[in-house]
Structures are given as structure tokens and as C-alpha cells.
């Protein structure tokens, strides 16, 4: 049985009208029925506050406020109805530096343009199946920037490191006294 998408509300923010229409149409084809569209960040924020969508898909470069500023406002404004809302940031940029910039500003997923329907699908699946934990730290609030989710194993790892280190020291010490020879091992301590 496929996903039930009827109740999932998506806000799409895109300043280029044909692109906004195209993105909404693809989501409609996928089965989403609750779709909202905005042509700029101000309009988007207003719609976001009114409708509290489940997912936001926004373009990065818009004027006068760009997608990154919109994300920051959603994440940090005290009036924001859901600072944890998953956000897909769309951009034509491919450079790793840009993706990191988006990530550091609180995006959940990055969708590179031009995109295919499958690319969009994969990002949505990611949001549904692998929701990200949030991190609240000095200077950052947003999805955990580490992709791999791991349990905290600090003390165990340190113990393992210590064990390996001690083992290595023992091996090294053994290497000093044992010199391998073609016909076996010569013990230099018994000269």
C-alpha cells in the first residue's frame, strides 16, 4: 500500500512562476493534495504561520529575502509555529561549499536544480523515513548536521582506543626483540 499523502501539507516557495507551477504539479502527480505556493519569502512566511505546513520546499536565491534567511526565520523566530518543520532547499549550485552553507543555516535536505521527479521523490522519502534529530547549541539551531545517526559511545570508544594502543605497544616491544629470519625467528635477547 502506498503512502497516504492526502493530509500532508506542503508549502513551495519559488520566485520563478513556471518553476513554482512545475514543482507543485509534480507533487500533485505524486498524490499530494494540500499544496500552497508563494513567490517570495515574505508571502511564504505569512502562509507558513497561517497554515503550519508539514514540509517546506524553498528556492535559495530570491529577492529581497533569500531562502536561507527564510529558513533562519522559520527556525529562530519566536512566532514560528513549528521551528522543526523539515525544509528542502533547492538551488542550481552544486559546489560542496554551498551545500554546507545551506546545511549550516538549518535546511534539512538539499535538492539540486535541474532536478528529476525521482530526485524530488528521494528527498521526500528521506524526510518521511529518516527524520533528523535537532540540535540546539550556541550559534546553531537546526537539524543535526551529521548524516549518520550513532549512539554516543565516547567512553567505550576511548577504552577500545586505549586497549588497541596498549596492544600496539606490546607488539612494537615484541618487534624489537624478535627479528624474523628466513629459517624462522631469531631471538636477539639470547645472543
Amino acid at each position, binding site marked *: *500500500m*502506498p*503512502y*497516504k*499523502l492526502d*493530509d*500532508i501539507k506542503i508549502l513551495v516557495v519559488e520566485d*520563478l512562476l*513556471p*518553476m513554482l507551477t*512545475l514543482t507543485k*504539479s*509534480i507533487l500533485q*502527480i*505524486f*498524490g499530494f493534495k494540500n499544496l500552497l505556493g508563494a513567490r517570495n519569502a515574505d508571502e511564504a512566511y505569512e502562509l507558513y504561520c497561517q497554515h503550519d505546513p*508539514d*514540509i517546506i520546499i524553498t528556492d535559495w*536565491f530570491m529577492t529581497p529575502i533569500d531562502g536561507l534567511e527564510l529558513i533562519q526565520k522559520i527556525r529562530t523566530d519566536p512566532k514560528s509555529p513549528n521551528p*522543526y518543520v*523539515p525544509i528542502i532547499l*533547492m*538551488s*542550481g*549550485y*552544486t*559546489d560542496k*561549499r*554551498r551545500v554546507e552553507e545551506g546545511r549550516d543555516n538549518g535546511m534539512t535536505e538539499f535538492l539540486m*536544480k*535541474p*532536478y*528529476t*521527479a*525521482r530526485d*524530488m*521523490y528521494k528527498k*521526500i*522519502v528521506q*524526510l*518521511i*523515513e529518516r*527524520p*533528523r*534529530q*535537532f*540540535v*540546539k*547549541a*550556541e550559534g546553531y539551531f537546526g537539524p*543535526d548536521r551529521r548524516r549518520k545517526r550513532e549512539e554516543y559511545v565516547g567512553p567505550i570508544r576511548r577504552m577500545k582506543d586505549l586497549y588497541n594502543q596498549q596492544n600496539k605497544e606490546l607488539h612494537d616491544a615484541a618487534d624489537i626483540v624478535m627479528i624474523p629470519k628466513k629459517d624462522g625467528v631469531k631471538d636477539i635477547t639470547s645472543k
Partner: protein
Amino acid sequence: MSHDDNFFDHLDEMPKVEFIPPSQGLKKKAGSGGIPDHLIERGESFIKDNNVDFIPFAKAYIEDIRIYIEQLKKTQSASKQKKIMHNMTLLIMQLKAHGGMFNYPSMSLLSNLILKFLEKTDLINDDLIKIIEAHNNGIDILINGKVKIENDVRTIALEKELQKVIDRYLKKYT
């Protein structure tokens, strides 16, 4: 006070990080099973068959790039040059992002090439301006010739030429 009394004090001074568990709200609403493959295929066809005319947008972008090129040639101020470059890069990024969405993957290909190059270089000089001009003229050729696909001979020739001048530039200045 002994040395040991304040041994753990540094832990209080460490920045506090709070982890908030992920919300399962979307999963609860969507359930499981994914989106049927035929709907994804329909989405692909919708992108492929959309009849949005991207040419007026592309023409406006390359016209604006042309204006920025002229401004770049005239200005001596490094901060102004940087700002112009930033604005120009955004327009090239629009060509890259939307050309491919609206049936001009050829446009995306050429623009991606120069976008990657501009992301790597900070030096603004006459040679760099010439490369941006070459890209802009290339896009003009694609528009006038209605060259849409990536493996059209004209796209391939333009890509090769652009790559050649970029390589030459990188060899000379990096």
C-alpha cells in the same frame, strides 16, 4: 582548596548542546509503502513534456549578464567588481538551474561548466571576463539555433571550446 576540588570545573564551562529527538509526525501521516513507480514516471514525463517557453527568461538573463560584463570592464573598485561577479554568478546559476527544467539541458550543461569554474576562482581580470563573454555568446547560439539537447554537435563543440579556455585560464593563473 586542593587541586582535585576544581578538577571537573571545565565541564561546566563547555558549551551546552541539546539534542531533540526527531519528530515522527510525517511518518505517522504518510504510513509506509512509498510512492508508486508509475507516478514517479508520470512526474518525469511531465517535466520532459512541459511546454514552458524558457527562451524569454534566458534572453533576459543573458542580457543582464551582458550589462554586468560591461560594468565589470569599467569598474576598478575591487569591492564593486566582487558584487558584480556575485550578481552575474546568480544569473548563470539561473540558466543552469532552469534550462534543464524547461527542455534546454544544453543550457544547463554550458552554465554548469562556467559556474563550477567561477566558484573556484577569485581573480577578476580581462581573461576571466572573456570567458564569461564566451559563455554568454554560447548561450545566445543555443537560443538562436533552438539547440536543446546535450549531445547536439553544436552543444558539444561549444562545451569543448569553453572547457579549453577554462583550462588555459586555470593553467595560467593557478
